[in-house]
């Protein structure tokens, strides 16, 4: 009886461990994006308060986007000028900035209809998943490509959204560079700008 009990406990523990070692999302990039889109849509169509919507969308973003990687890309060459403490501070600020900006952009869509079309494996690290945001009476059809980072094949992560061929990560990177350059290369001024954005 005791042995059976231990086997049962071991079984349950193993399931728990297994569930935590892999993502709750599919490892196939196309399926992964489909699941992310479906999950986000559920939140957007639910009659929820704006705060709750943003909280739930942020929770998804934390799971499916490589926020740290995007943050480093966005900082470009300037990341090499920061010490460890400043980098940590930047990571924290960027995550808050990213979540606020991401949820705000998504919240503009109340019932998005997105068709996930195909996946194009670029190399072992990247797959581009192609999708289409269908037209409404007010907005034209929009092509959205997702740059999925697949280095860990069990846990794909989104690194960029490419809307009608225009990269959001690249746009953000050039925006950050502009802020730094207009402050004579002082990266800490970017931190101040990010804080202002987060607090507004």
């Amino acid at each position, binding site marked *: 009886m005791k042995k059976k009990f231990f086997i049962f406990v071991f079984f349950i523990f193993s399931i728990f461990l297994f569930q935590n070692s892999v993502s709750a999302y599919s490892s196939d990039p196309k399926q992964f994006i489909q699941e992310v889109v479906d999950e986000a849509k559920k939140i957007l169509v639910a009659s929820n308060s704006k705060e709750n919507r943003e909280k739930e969308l942020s929770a998804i973003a934390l799971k499916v986007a490589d926020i740290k990687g995007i943050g480093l890309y966005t900082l470009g060459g300037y990341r090499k000028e920061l010490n460890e403490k400043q980098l940590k501070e930047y990571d924290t600020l960027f995550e808050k900035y990213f979540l606020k900006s991401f949820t705000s952009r998504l919240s503009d869509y109340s019932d998005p209809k997105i068709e996930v079309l195909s996946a194009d494996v670029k190399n072992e690290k990247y797959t581009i998943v192609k999708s289409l945001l269908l037209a409404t009476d007010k907005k034209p059809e929009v092509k959205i490509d997702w740059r999925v980072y697949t280095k860990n094949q069990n846990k794909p992560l989104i690194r960029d959204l490419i809307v009608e061929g225009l990269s959001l990560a690249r746009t953000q*990177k050039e*925006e950050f560079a*502009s*802020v730094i350059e207009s402050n004579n290369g002082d990266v800490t001024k970017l931190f101040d700008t990010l804080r202002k954005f987060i607090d507004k």
Partner: protein
Amino acid sequence: MIRKILYIAIFAMFFQANTANAGSTGSEDLKSPTKITADECFEGFSRAMFTFNHGLDKAVFKPVAKGYRALPVPIRRGTGNAMDNLRSLLTLSNNLLQGDFSAAGNTAGRFAINTTVGILGIFDPASALGLKEKGKEDFGQTLGVWGADPGCYFVLPILGPTTARDAIGKVGNVFLDPVFQITHNTEIDNGVIGNSTYSEHNYYYYRTTSAVDFRAKNIESFDSLEKNSIDFYASLKSLYLQNRSKKILNTESKVDTQDDSDWEEIEN
């Protein structure tokens, strides 16, 4: 006549700016006609123009676009189609200049079908027949295809973001656009301003309607971009340059145009 001289003067001025810029930039950067970055010509002036344009947009263009959007969907769709149909004549000229005869055939076929069966372009039967639009072309793109560097970046009053190459392109568009040539020449031939059939004013009505149609389709996109930008001017500059690069390459794939070097260094 005076207007033509003015156009040529502007053309020459920008050509000089482009050449001067090319001379002062590193040779590596000049090799790619699809270069996505561009130095500022005069950032202070451009930022001031950007603020001016932004104010004008809020006061005039956006309200007009919102009013236009209140029209029934079929009217807006028909107007958009008709404007696109007229615009395709400029695309056709540039398809030919770029030596892209397959695209030229497609554009000409679409224009012929949509103008006749599609009742002056209000409907788009050509797409249903398999002749899908392959993208708009202009003289700035043609210069890019010919190998011209974008030159420096600046913002024009009302017309918005541009580069030295695209500014030359804007002047070239006027000469290459059959719609302008028909309306302009008819006016000259008749010796009157505002000939009721084909006056040059009609060209400006058409250009303005196209701009309103474009603005109406992008009200939320611009609002969202502005709300989520920490430097709206830099955001629009980046998007403009990316878009021009994409159009010159005639590609929908960002992978063809994006420099991945920074991504490659980042491994979690």
